């Protein structure tokens, strides 16, 4: 049942990605200051926004899980955070490339956005050892939800604290709320954001479908009394 709508969603994602990339490479003008390297902006910033939103969405699913006790929401929360952590790796890598090209260093401690994203990423990277250290399935789900909610409250607080710790001597590469972007760039940026958002949704849906399929397979095997091959994952939540 999780597979429903996966095909049109995948097609939409591919179309949006192709559209976004063609806009990035053939339509949008070169940045006057930074030239070609600035184009990584259309990948890096949407990835970061989608990853952060994904963390918050994971927290919302966790709240739903604790309120309803339905383990389905826990699986949603797990997959959301899982995908956002993967996106987070991409954010850190693309950010590093951009920083090297425009500031001359792979890592710049004076840039609050970089530092706060790293801290948030480290926080969510501990989600896995935390979750897998708890054996009892139900307790694991409950504790993981508590973690997701706590970390969700931590994200905005962290951004505030890190931003205040810097003296803001560095020029912001792009103004807040994209105030400084000319129309063509803004349009391309929005299309890229939609494309990356669709990519995240598709991957989340895909993983949920795969989980549900393997759960069904396991139940069928058990019903038919066929031994399950290998040690199946005791760690990831199951979807029924």
């Amino acid at each position, binding site marked *: 049942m999780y597979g429903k709508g996966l095909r049109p969603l995948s097609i939409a994602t591919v179309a949006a990605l192709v559209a976004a990339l063609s806009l990035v490479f053939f339509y949008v003008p070169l940045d006057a200051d930074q030239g070609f390297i600035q184009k990584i902006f259309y990948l890096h910033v949407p990835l970061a926004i989608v990853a952060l939103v994904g963390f918050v969405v994971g927290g919302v699913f966790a709240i739903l899980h604790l309120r309803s006790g339905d383990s389905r929401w826990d699986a949603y929360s797990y997959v959301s955070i899982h995908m956002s952590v993967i996106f987070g790796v991409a954010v850190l890598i693309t950010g590093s490339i951009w920083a090297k090209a425009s500031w001359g260093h792979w890592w710049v401690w004076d840039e609050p956005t970089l530092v706060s994203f790293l801290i948030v990423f480290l926080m969510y990277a501990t989600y896995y050892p935390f979750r897998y250290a708890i054996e009892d399935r139900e307790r694991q789900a409950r504790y993981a939800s508590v973690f997701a909610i706590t*970390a969700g409250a931590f994200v905005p607080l962290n951004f505030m*604290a*890190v931003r205040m710790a810097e003296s803001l001597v560095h020029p912001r590469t792009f103004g807040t709320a994209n105030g400084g972007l000319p129309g063509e760039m803004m349009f391309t940026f929005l299309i890229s954001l939609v494309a990356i958002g669709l990519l995240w949704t598709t991957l989340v849906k895909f993983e949920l479908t795969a989980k549900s399929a393997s759960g069904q397979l396991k139940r069928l095997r058990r019903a038919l009394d066929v031994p399950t091959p290998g040690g199946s994952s005791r760690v990831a939540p199951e979807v029924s």
Partner: protein
Amino acid sequence: MTSSRLVYMAILGKDLRAELRTLQSLPAMTLFAITTFVIFRFGLDRTSLSGSLAAGVLWATLLFAAILGINRLFVAEREEGGFDAIRLAPVDRTTVFAAKASALLVYLVALELVVVPVFAVFFLDSAAALLPLTLVLLLADLGLAATGTLISSMAVNSSARDLLTPLVLLPLVVPLMIAASGASEPLLALGGPGYHRFGTWLAVLGLYDLIFLLVGYAVFDFLLED
């Protein structure tokens, strides 16, 4: 006295009495902190500290010493069956959170009563910064108590136990440490305490405390269910 206050006093009293009789956490935390100061003295090769270096040494040491105590906070509950007793008793679970966080707060204050004067004797030229520093210490302790209680109660029920507490807690307290050392840095500056952005940092500390006390209050119920 309402029943929840009775429960609160009972659990807090039990914790403090147990600590006074066994002396499991506090002496270890204190000793750890003082030894760490000695290591910093040689690691940094400085005999006196000021400004950001002093703030960094103080807060890093206090944080790691606090983690020792946070790790032990729920060990007795787990090993001696305290969790089962609390689950059986018809008490509000959030009261348990409040009592445990208060116990941790008392530990941290007791730790700092010994360790911060030692820090001043070891590294500081004057003790003028200590009075305003207590405000920063208290607000940071409140935040550490809230997050520490929350994480400790989860970690103690996992198979990784004391491995998990520092792993999860360290990233979680980064904003707290940023604000605490931001407020302490001008206080510990050479040539008398300064108050650059002192109020702003205190506000951040207060906000952090408020948010995580509320989060703890909201979710602690689910940690004791079974």
